[in-house]
């Protein structure tokens, strides 16, 4: 891991398997630099996968975040890796990467759709019942910031579940919680976020 930090070039796509394993171990040791690096790696891999999909026969097929994240895991780490801790860190970073991608997509959508006309994503007079799925993503994302201030752990659970598509079990493993607390936090967070959005 020592050498990783000094890598002269950040061509994430060329990263090999042992490298990511080393990064994951560094993350496990709590090295912050490595988290950023991991995020970069995962993000690049997701980008690469998308490019491959688009170029190949499968173009046009619908992707699900969960599937994509798992595919990225296999691509980068391989099926041999069994350490739960590594998986946890990986999925954490993947959820962040997906969040970023999805938000960008939603914004892009909103921009293309509204394209300078009078429509707007402004919660003041947005009819929630008529909001588009992309609007929902943006509103949830915005409310998440607020939740993160009040209760960072709960906000993290929302990121992992909503953006990362992780199961309760996976979230529990990632954060070191029981499955039941994940379930409880998730229910509470959803209700709270929605009540905020509605009362805005």
């Amino acid at each position, binding site marked *: 891991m020592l050498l990783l930090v000094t890598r*002269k*070039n950040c061509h994430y796509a060329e990263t090999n398997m042992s490298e990511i394993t080393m990064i994951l171990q560094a993350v496990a040791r709590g090295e912050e630099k490595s988290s950023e690096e991991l995020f970069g790696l995962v993000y690049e891999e997701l980008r690469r996968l*998308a490019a491959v999909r688009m170029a190949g026969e499968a173009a*046009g097929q619908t*992707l699900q975040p969960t599937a994509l994240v798992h595919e990225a895991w296999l691509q980068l780490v391989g099926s041999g890796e069994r350490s739960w801790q590594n998986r946890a860190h990986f999925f954490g970073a993947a959820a962040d990467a997906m969040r970023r991608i999805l938000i960008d997509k939603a914004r892009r959508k909103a921009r293309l759709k509204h394209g*300078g006309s009078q429509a707007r994503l402004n919660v003041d007079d947005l009819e929630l019942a008529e909001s588009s799925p992309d609007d*929902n993503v943006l509103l949830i994302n915005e409310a998440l910031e607020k939740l993160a201030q*009040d209760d960072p752990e709960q906000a993290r659970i929302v990121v992992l579940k909503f953006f990362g598509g992780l199961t309760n079990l996976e979230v529990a493993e990632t954060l070191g919680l029981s499955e039941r607390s994940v379930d409880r936090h998730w*229910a509470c967070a959803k209700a709270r976020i929605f*009540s905020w959005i509605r009362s805005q």
Partner: protein
Amino acid sequence: MSADKQKQLEDAVFFTALNIGELAQRKFFLDQACADNAGLRAAVEALLVAQAGAEHFFTKGRSALRFPADELAAVVNGIKDAPLVDEQLGSQIGPYKLLQRIGEGGCGVVYMAEQERPVRRRVALKVIKLGMDTKNVIARFGAERQALALMDHPNIARVLDAGATETGRPYFVMELVRGVKLTEYCDLNNLDTRQRLNLFIQICHAIQHAHQKGIVHRDIKPSNILVTLHDGVPVPKVIDFGIAKAIEGKLTEQTLFTAYEQLIGTPAYMSPEQAEMSGLDVDTRSDIYSLGVLLYELLTGRTPFDGKELIKSGLDEMRRTLREDEPRRPSNILTTLHGTELKATAEHRHAEAPKLISILKGDLDWIVMKALEKDRQRRYETVNGLAMDVQRYLNQEPVLARPPSRWYRFEKLVRRNQMVFALGTAVAVALILGLGTSTWLFLREKDARREQAWLRGQAEQAQKRENELRQQTEAREKINLAAVYVSQEKYEQAAQLLDEVKTPPPKPSFDGVSAYRSVGEWLAVQGRWREATERYLALMEIDKLDKWGAVTLDYQACGAVLVESGGLAQYERFCRATIDSFITTTNGDAAGRILKTCLLLPVTESRLAQVQPLGVAAEELFLPQDPKTFPGWAAIPASLWRYRQGNYDQAMEECRRGLDEQDKTTARTATLRVILAMACQKNGRLEIARTQLACARSTVEAKFASGVARGDGNLGFWYDWVFARILLREAAALIEPPPELPQAAVK
């Protein structure tokens, strides 16, 4: 109840209620749970009501997360260069009517717009590119608004308003400036160096004005400085005040990763601390750095680091470059240009190439380099200071900026390498220098807290102790003057001044601290132990407050000085205090330095018991190292500790692991030989003891005979040699009784 607890309670009651399907039972539960807490009841009811809608809302949101691969690819690839949907010309944004697109910058598109009310005027309206969290951007802008309104300067374009467009993007409204980018103006008109400097001084005054109103620009670069002509006289105007802060907000590492290109544009003007995003507050000194880059470019046509290269190299590498790499001096970079390029650069500055180089060489080089210091404490303290130095240059007066002295450069090397080591990179370099870095990391954390506490105390005391403060100010001035002498290598004068300072003020300037260190060393190297002792004890007091990287090196030096000056009671007190403050360190390097310093003389049982944790930490650092690499410095504390414990076998073993038999020149080998000799003697291996002692003695004597300078981390600093000599005396008395130490060695 704290907000935290309140939320936990609400969550708990909500979740329990949710799981009670039967409505009457649920109501009963809520009655019980919220009996005397109407607020709680209301909050939980609200959550229960929201719950059903929430499921639907989230499910619908999830459906947006499934989408075709080509769309995904478009998103992830397009983030960088997604075409910006232009606002329609002629359309209305708030009270502004868009007239004409006048430019596109790093973070947005700029329009000329017409304001209808309250006054009819033309303004510049900048729409920020990214679909960011508009609300926060505007909120952050609002926070600065009052301060921005206070700015009133002919060289600053006023920021008038901010808001959100229909599509939810933030926009800013500014005074309309019809001008050209600074560098372009200079090159188009072939302004010579003096003319450029005069423009630069005006820009400095504008920034200084803003700083006095509490506004940091944060994004100073040529495209944010437009030159207009007023009656034929060029007037630079700084635009975009307050915008960088509003849109930077709190970028996290993660958003930064993809966003920094769009947000910040070129990182070429970014100060190291800005690039770090470490939570270190960005202050006026960041602007000074950016002004340094601007000056660099005005003079040479280049930025110290190439913006495109920085982006290409990736975030980590970019940070490393900004933090560690020393840019070429302005005069020096010109010599690296190709003939035609150099010729063009010079022509744009109305000069011949050799002439231009000689103009920049010297004062202008140092002014630029001082503004570009990595450590913001070493930059000019104010923009005014920078402007004044440029003015002095123009008036042909001596400037304050100076070429770094040799010692200063060495210090800088040490510090830089600690940074490197902190990142876990050049382990080899760090070993050579014998410096530990986690020392630095460990201390840094404590620093912040200490500093906070100190500042608070200082504020309270300020009212009470005016008189004392005045004395402190005088002392501070003396110290600063001493620092100037040190920079000119006039140590005697510096020593005299510091001698006059009876109580050093808390927290002298950075240069002041270095002055104490340099003078202390200079005195020690000359064998003026008493004076050296006083300087070092003062330095210890300062170090308590303001610990810089190699602070344990100061302790090491101080310990050696105290023993050598014969101040044994002082040495004893020093050891006690030092052990107290470092006993909890888990850092092997720090532990090792403190340990060997406190074991320099034979010790009592209770002292040995005290330093046990340090010994363990030092050994943990040393033992895993490969003996082939001769981890000599790390072997010293470990083996000395074992020797003092009476564990001679272990001491011998450790000395041998760290010993490079071929080496006849370094303090570390000499020291290890001495320890080995003593351990062998105790174990009855008398022959080896004598050989090793003789070997060590010849090395040490040769060193002192040839004169001990400051030394270096490879062969040994002066205090490493003093350290070796003190142990050598002990060993000689042990192995060759009655003591007949050669006079040369005890001088």
